[in-house]
């Protein structure tokens, strides 16, 4: 009797998995570097103040105003303009990690198009667009 062979694995999944894994790992490494710098040379948000405020149950806006001297939390991609600070680099790393699925989904979409995935191209496109809109800051929590 002929031995069964493993089925072919869909390339779309492999593309998504590879992109998401590598970018997530890169993001974690960047955030580790950032946090080391933050511990050595402080950051945009004073680290002791941040710790004290966090542990006293302060709200997001209070932490920002007490520890960074701003009136309210800096919204959006605040860290891009603060990359000389360790916490901003760490935050960049977290953002890169959070971008892993966004880029992975666009890669998966390309894979799906190439493998003529029919309606799954539309599904992938919808998810990729939603993730991108969230990542660029078009979906925000308003107060």
């Amino acid at each position, binding site marked *: 009797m002929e031995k*069964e062979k*493993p*089925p072919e*694995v*869909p390339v*779309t*999944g492999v593309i*998504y*998995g*590879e992109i*998401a*894994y590598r970018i*997530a790992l890169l993001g*974690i490494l960047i*955030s*580790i570097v950032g*946090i080391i710098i*933050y*511990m*050595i040379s402080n*950051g945009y948000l004073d*680290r*002791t103040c*941040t*710790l*004290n405020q*966090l*542990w*006293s*149950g302060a*709200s*997001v*806006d209070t932490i920002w105003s007490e520890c960074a001297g701003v009136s309210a939390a800096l*919204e*959006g991609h605040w860290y891009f303009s603060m990359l000389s600070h360790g*916490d901003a680099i*760490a*935050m960049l790393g*977290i*953002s890169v*990690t*959070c971008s892993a*699925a*966004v880029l992975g989904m666009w890669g*998966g979409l390309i894979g799906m198009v190439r493998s003529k*995935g*029919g*309606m*799954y191209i539309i*599904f992938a496109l919808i*998810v990729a667009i*939603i*993730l991108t809109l*969230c990542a660029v*800051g078009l*979906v*925000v*929590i*308003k*107060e």
Partner: protein
Amino acid sequence: MRLSKLSIAAAIVLAITIFLFSSGIGYAADSADQSMGLSPVAFFFVFVAICTLIGIVAVLGGVGGGVVFTPLMMGFTPIDSFIIRATGLVVAMAGSLIAARPFLRRGLANIKLLFFAAVPYTIFAVVGALLAGYVKASAGEFGEALIRLILGVLVIFIALLILFGGKKVEYPEVKKVDGFTQRLGLAMSYWEQSMGKVVNYKVTRSPVGIFLFCACGVVSGMFGVGAGWAMVPVFNLVMLAPLKVAAASSKVLIGMGDTAAVWPYIMRGGIFPLFAVACIIGVVIGTSIGARLMFKVKAQFIRWMIILVMIGAGVKLAIDGIEML
């Protein structure tokens, strides 16, 4: 000699620990005002250690890190719940993104099923995140109380689901595939290593699945917990996917959906690297260690432990919520 990835990770963490402690102790001594009597460096490593433990215990208990992290942190630390829920989502998402690769390379996670489920899950995870912000802003103390109370009840429910969730079927029999699912063409196959053969499977009831994934998304986005505990039963018991496919697919799906939910929290400035990075590193290391320990330790004890911890956290959150009302 070939070093395992885990040894390398452990060595890096050890090196960083030594480096930071040697550079940070002087700073800590200067600090007049320290929370818990800890310097930021010590706080960071305490949370790496706690989250490593959470990661290990969660994997051995058969749940994701996020679902243990958020209720524990909300129940037993004074940190603002908005920040904890934001961090919980990052933790759940990071663990899922790292774990996704092998499932997709082996074809264990059904990519068609994933893209299909990702649409309702992602949309409603965003809705959940926006709802969390709205409740916080408009309902103030009452909203916080409500979130704690609902999360407490939810966590107790999840613990009971783990306790009585023995009905999971490894290879459910699909007798009839509805027309909608048939048109979607979700049937696939994967190589079952333990049996040395190909498993061909079908799924069904995808319209019910859409509705349930919407609910999973709202819960995940609003409370900052990964929704693997809910999605595995949806895939396995409702849509009748094999258990391994259900578990792998839900793990990958968390990475997609929670990414959408976490961005509104980031945009609102709700992530603080001092806390978030420690938690991400801890949970990622913990889940890696847990996955290796899984085959060596008796999981039954851990399972009971996690059930008790979750019930404890759930009761604490519910009591906090009732007291705040």
